[in-house]
C-alpha cells in the first residue's frame, strides 16, 4: 500500500501542472492546496486569481475552507471586485485554471449542474460558480475528479463548463477563445487530449493502478497515449507540504 492517499496524489499531480510565473485561476478545495504546494516548490512566482475579487502572490500558511476566508484577503496583491478578476480571465490573462465537477466526458466537457434532465433533475448540483468562465477563457484548464464510470460518462448529461465539445475545432466554431482542457486528474491517473481529435487519452497511470482498472472505470473505450507513463509518486517534500497545509486531512484524507 502506498503511504499517501489518492487525494494527496491528485493535489501533487495538479501542482506539477502549474508553471512558474503563470497566472492561475484557482478553484476551491484540492486546487487551493495544489496552488499552495506549487508556490512552495517549483512555481514560487505563480500568481493566483480568485473570483471573489482577489489576486494573490504570497503563499498562505493555513488551510482555506473558502476563498473569502480572512487569511486569503490579508496580504493579497489586489483585493477588488469579481468583475475585475473576471475581466482578466475573459480578456485572456489567465494561463491556467482549475475546476472540479460531478462528471467529465470523453471530450473534457464538465457537468456540475444537473444529473438527469435539467427540468426534472435526479440530482441538483450546485452549478457553475466560476467554472464555466474558467473553462471558457483560461489559456488551459485542468479538471480534478474521482475516477469511476458514473463520473466519467461518454457524454455528460449537461455541459456546465465546455471542454472540446464534440472534438476537433469545436471550440473555435462556437466562439470560445480559451484553450480548453489540458488534463483531467483523477484518482487513477491523468488524462490528456489528442492534439487533433481532442479526444481524451490516458497519459499517466498512478502507482499501483492497473490499466484494466482505469478502462473498467471509464464510461467509454478509453484511448491510451503512445507515451503512457506511470505518474511519478509524491516526493517526500511534496507530501510534507500538503500535510502541513491540510493538517486535519479535511480535503486529502
Amino acid at each position, binding site marked *: 500500500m502506498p503511504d499517501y492517499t489518492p487525494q494527496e496524489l491528485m493535489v501533487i499531480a495538479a501542482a506539477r501542472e502549474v508553471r512558474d510565473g503563470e497566472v492561475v485561476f484557482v478553484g476551491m478545495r484540492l486546487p487551493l492546496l495544489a496552488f499552495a504546494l506549487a508556490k512552495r516548490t517549483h512555481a514560487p512566482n505563480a500568481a493566483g486569481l480568485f473570483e471573489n475579487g482577489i489576486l494573490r502572490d504570497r503563499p498562505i500558511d493555513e488551510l482555506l475552507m*473558502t476563498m*473569502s476566508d480572512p487569511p486569503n484577503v490579508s496580504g493579497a496583491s489586489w483585493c477588488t471586485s469579481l468583475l475585475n478578476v473576471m475581466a482578466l480571465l475573459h480578456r485572456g490573462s489567465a494561463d491556467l485554471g482549475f475546476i472540479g465537477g460531478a462528471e467529465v466526458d470523453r471530450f473534457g466537457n464538465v457537468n456540475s449542474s444537473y444529473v438527469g434532465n435539467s427540468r426534472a433533475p435526479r440530482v441538483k448540483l450546485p452549478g457553475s460558480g466560476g467554472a464555466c468562465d474558467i473553462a471558457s477563457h483560461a489559456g488551459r484548464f485542468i479538471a480534478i475528479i474521482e475516477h469511476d464510470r458514473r463520473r466519467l460518462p461518454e457524454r455528460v448529461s449537461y455541459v456546465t463548463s465546455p471542454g472540446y465539445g464534440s472534438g476537433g475545432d469545436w471550440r473555435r466554431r462556437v466562439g470560445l477563445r480559451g484553450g480548453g482542457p489540458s488534463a483531467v486528474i483523477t484518482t487513477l491517473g491523468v488524462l490528456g487530449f489528442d492534439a487533433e481529435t481532442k479526444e481524451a487519452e490516458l497519459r499517466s497511470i498512478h502507482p499501483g493502478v492497473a490499466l484494466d482498472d482505469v478502462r473498467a472505470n471509464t464510461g467509454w473505450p478509453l484511448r491510451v497515449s503512445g507515451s503512457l507513463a506511470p505518474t511519478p509518486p509524491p516526493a517526500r517534500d511534496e507530501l510534507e507540504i500538503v500535510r502541513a497545509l491540510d493538517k486535519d486531512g479535511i480535503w486529502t484524507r
Partner: protein
Amino acid sequence: MVDKRMSLREAIARFVSDGDTVAMGAALEGLIPFAAGHELIRQRRRGLTFIGPISDALLDQLVGAGCVSKVVVAWAGNVSEGLGHNYRRAAEAGIPHRIQIEDHTNLTLALGLLAGALGVPYIPSRSGLGSDLPASNPTLRVIASPLDGQPLIAVPAIQPDVAVLHVQRADAEGRAHCWGALGVTNEAGLASRRIILTAEEIVPGDVILSDPNRIIAPHFKVVAVAHAPGGAHPSPAQGYYGRDHAFFGEYHRRSRTPDDFAAWLDEWVLRLPDRAAYVERLGAERWQSLTLRDHRFAATVDYGL
C-alpha cells in the same frame, strides 16, 4: 441629515415585500447578510426571487423556510460542505415547494447586474458559449455580434428591488465602508432600486468621510441602516471575525431531512427575536474563538489639501 438607522426588523418590514427580487451575498463567501436573511424568515416573506453569485447556506435556509420561488444564481449549496439539502429537495422534489432556477456563471451574473446598474438591456460575454446554460436559462441568448458576426451571449440586465449588504461600518445616513473581497457588491448596489445596510458598527459620519475611496455605494440609494453586530455569522467579516466552519458543518448535518431542518430553524431562527439573541445563543466562548487573533491595520492614507 436623514437618519436611516432602524432595527433590522423594521428595515425588513418596511423595505422587503412578498414577491420582491432581493440580492444577497454579493461579496461571495464573506459578509453574507445572514441576520437579514433570518429576519426575512421570521417575517415569513414569500415568493422572493433570490439573486446571488454564490450564497452559501443562507439561500439554502431561505429555500427551506419557503421564502423563495425563484433563484438566479451561479452556485448554490454549502461552500465547505458541498450540496445544500434544502436547495436539492426544492429542485428535485418540490419540497417545501417548487422553485424556478435560472442558471448563471459568476461572470454572467455580475454582467447582468452591471447591465442593470447601467440601465442597458444586456451586456455581451463569451461565457456560456458552447455550454447548456442558454438551454436551461433561456434568458441567456446566443447572438451574433453586430460588429463582426461572431457569437456572443447576451446577458440580460438584472435589476433587483433591493440589495441587502452587510458591511463593516456605516454611518446613520447610509455611507458605508466595506473591505475584503467585494465580489459583486458595487454592481448589486448600483443595479438595485434600494439598498438595506446591516453593519457591524455604526460610526460617526466623519469616520466614513475620512476615507471616501472605501465607500461601497451611493448613500442616497440606502433606505435603511441596521446595526447588526455578528450579522454575517457564520460567514466571515474581515477585521471582525473569521468563518465559523463548524457551524456550516452542523447546519449541513442538521438539514438532511425536512424534520431535522425544521428543528434547526426553530432553534436558530424562529425562536430567537433578533441577532443579539443569536450571538448570545452562540455563547461567549465560541464567539471568542472566531474573533481576531492578530490585528493587521492598513497604513493610513493622507487625503490632505
